[in-house]
């Protein structure tokens, strides 16, 4: 698996900052103890915008010099209205289970990506053919993030939101430049909405039916990042994984190697990550990352505490990342069989 990192190099590179403190004493409002029933939601007193609110679908659209796409809501049906320059507008109905659209963007080869949610946990990605005005592919996912150029979608492989036993996160990559069948393992039906894409991490996993459920919770890989983070040129993306007491910062390069990512990793132990926290329940997420512009530059990663105000920054030279080479063969998609 991953090469372990020399712990001593982190000491010089890590910059820790613990925030927060004892708040000044002041009186709170008198509590309303009657508000305990499910229906008494006061959105004005909830904090921040909700992520999933299909009854108040936000206006979603895409515009460039020769293409305009806009979300339409007709009853419970979500439709993308496509307006190509010099052509009449046409409508593409989205899959019926899609309850909310979060993003529409243009993809490669006159295609478009629609990223939305089927419920408060699960997401769905649809690929639109802007020539045929149809949905050519659709798959379920968690935390999907499209590359800036719209070609790729990084996501966590889907598992049922509940009653699926222990699940682990498999970090997948979908290439919108390829056909639906080419984005699935050999022998998999193109209508399969779960076993989709290439598994980028963990290494040597592949992509098989049910391979991410009924796992040993002590040995499960779980995302330790707020998101997938893409570089502006869509050539590289990053995320963090937690496996036991090891946080792994993963860099995946997709440029120039037949779209199969080259993965490099660096491990950070829980002790290194949480040295300044003095707590046992140290849970952190990668919250931001700056990518190197040139090979000699460094990657700057910022982790934040999940359940404690905490911030830990790391700076790594690219040559500190280990690059496992055995990864590519085991993730070969059907198109290469």
């Amino acid at each position: 698996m991953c090469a372990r990192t020399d712990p001593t190099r982190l000491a010089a590179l890590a910059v820790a900052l613990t925030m927060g403190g004892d708040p000044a004493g002041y009186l709170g409002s008198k509590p309303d103890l009657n508000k305990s029933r499910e229906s008494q939601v006061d959105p004005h007193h909830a904090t921040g915008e909700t992520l999933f609110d299909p009854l108040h679908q936000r206006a979603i659209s895409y515009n460039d010099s020769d293409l305009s796409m806009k979300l339409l809501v007709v009853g419970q049906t979500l439709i993308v209205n496509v307006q190509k320059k010099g052509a009449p507008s046409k409508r593409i109905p989205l899959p019926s289970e899609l309850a909310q659209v979060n993003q529409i963007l243009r993809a490669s080869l006159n295609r478009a990506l629609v990223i939305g949610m089927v419920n408060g946990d699960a997401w769905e990605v649809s690929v639109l053919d802007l020539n045929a005005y149809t949905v050519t592919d659709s798959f379920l996912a968690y935390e999907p993030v499209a590359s800036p150029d719209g070609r790729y979608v990084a996501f966590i492989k889907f598992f049922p939101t509940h009653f699926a036993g222990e699940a682990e996160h498999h970090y997948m990559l979908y290439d919108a430049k390829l056909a639906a069948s080419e984005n699935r393992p050999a022998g998999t039906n193109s209508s399969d909405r779960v076993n989709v894409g290439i598994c980028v991490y963990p290494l040597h996993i592949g992509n098989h039916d049910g391979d991410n459920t009924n796992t040993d919770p002590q040995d499960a890989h779980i995302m330790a990042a707020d998101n997938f983070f893409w570089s502006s040129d869509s050539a590289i993306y990053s995320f963090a994984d937690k496996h036991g007491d090891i946080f792994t910062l993963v860099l995946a390069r997709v440029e120039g190697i037949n779209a199969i990512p080259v993965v490099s990793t660096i491990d950070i132990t829980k002790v290194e990550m949480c040295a300044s926290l003095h707590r046992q329940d140290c849970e952190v997420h990668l919250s931001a990352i700056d990518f190197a512009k040139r090979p000699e530059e460094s990657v700057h990663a910022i982790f934040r505490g999940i359940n404690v105000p905490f911030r830990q920054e790391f700076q790594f030279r690219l040559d500190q990342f280990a690059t496992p080479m055995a990864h590519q063969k085991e993730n070969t998609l059907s198109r290469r069989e």
Partner: protein
Amino acid sequence: MTLATTGLPDEVVAVAASYDQALHYGAQTPFSDQLAAHWVGSQWQYDPQHDSVITTGNGGTKPTQAAFTLFYNQGTQKYQMEQTLQPGEQMWVDIGKLIRESIPDKNGKTLPADLTTGSYEIRDLNNHAIGTLFEGKVIYDKTYGHVTYGCGLCCGDKKIQLWYDPLSIPFADPSDDGVNGWNACGGFWEDISDGFYGNWNVVNTSIATVDYYGTHTGQSVGSTTSSTYGQFTGWRPGTVNCPVQGGSPGAPVNSVSIYITNHDLEQNNFSSTVDSAAGVSGALWMGTAGTTYGYSVSYNNDANVGPGSYAVPFNRPGLQPDTYTTVRSTWYVGTEGAEPTESINLVRDYTVFGTVRHSTYNTPYESSCTANTQTAWIFNTSCNFTQVSLKSDFVTQTYINGSGVSLNYGSLQYNSGSLCSGSYPTGANTTNSFLQVTNIDGSCGTTVVGGDSVATYPNPAIVGGTYVCGDNILLVTSANTNQAIKHVADYCPACSAGFNGTNGHIDNYNSSQACSAHNLGDYGNFWTADTH
């Protein structure tokens, strides 16, 4: 030999001196019979022509611990030594030797090799009120025979007072008091309680008692007066002498009671009852302490309150994410450091997560679905599969959500294939084949209840995680009102992500029978705590 003078005391100091025949090499030291607990010296010298040997001795009748400190670099650096001195024993400090041989002090620190001058201090660590140390110093001059040296000055106290005025003591609890002296040299209060041991007295012993060392114990609620008497090393302006003086400081004692009568985070009910003699008042504060953070809040914006019962609700969204283990109440009716306080260790800790995203999930009912039917399979724990027709949108939603209630086959749950692996008929797979169940049970083994059950990550059914099955989950709005109190019953594997900028993600089970989630938006983002 007798020398008479009409000058003021200490204007003439006797000095012992010795010189070689050419008067080039000489040594001098002043005479003094002063005993003190604290000495300061203004100058010592060390260079190729000079050396300083500073001595201190125990002039008392018992062993004592002497602390010797050299100050240098304008007093910013110090070199510290300690030594136990038997009665009559002396401690000799050759500063030149310390520098030349780089001898480390008690902290391992050495003096710089180029150090030439500085000041010093000697303290009696065992006897603070009446010290037993005398000081002496010899300075050598190898060149001119004439010696310049700084006198060692004893440092007495200008004035004395009790530690606390008034002293407030919690009823039935001990509370220490003592005597401070204002040090004439340093300009600070120092503890000289040892000179007043054994002489403490309380006027009304039915309210408070006091022991040999000044530890007071409240006997009943009320006010009285406490005092002691004793001797200490005083101070006389313009002289090097520190006369022994007597004093009898006293101050009021308030014996008060303080009880935390409620500490309920879920109902935000924090209250205390305080009692004392009439006229006693002070600010009442309550708070809670966590592993890293603390929180405290006052009654009525820090207003002074007298005896009575007071509710001090918390501004719960102000509690930082942490695990809080104690609740504390303090009535500020005394001087700082002796405030009556009650502290309670929580039986059920407050695990505060801060603002958490609360999504919702449900069990879709086939009766609410509208699509045409498709082929599907249902099976039981004996792995008997039956091919059936279910509405296709119901099949999709049952797979996505992990559970569903069919029109004709009762409750169904997703199974990963682990239960009947190898028994799936042709065409059956985990996305179209569901296990028949009696109830929709969460990972905790209990039936999930709409509006009450929540699903968490990590799995609450696994021992050692953040959550435990049955834990109370408190949701509070930004206005500090209760949104809900729910209970942990299920596992949400997707809840390790999808925070949407908050500190976490909890999935709330909803009793809706809707086929899809089009009408099931997030519950909201709320300040959240696990109150166990």
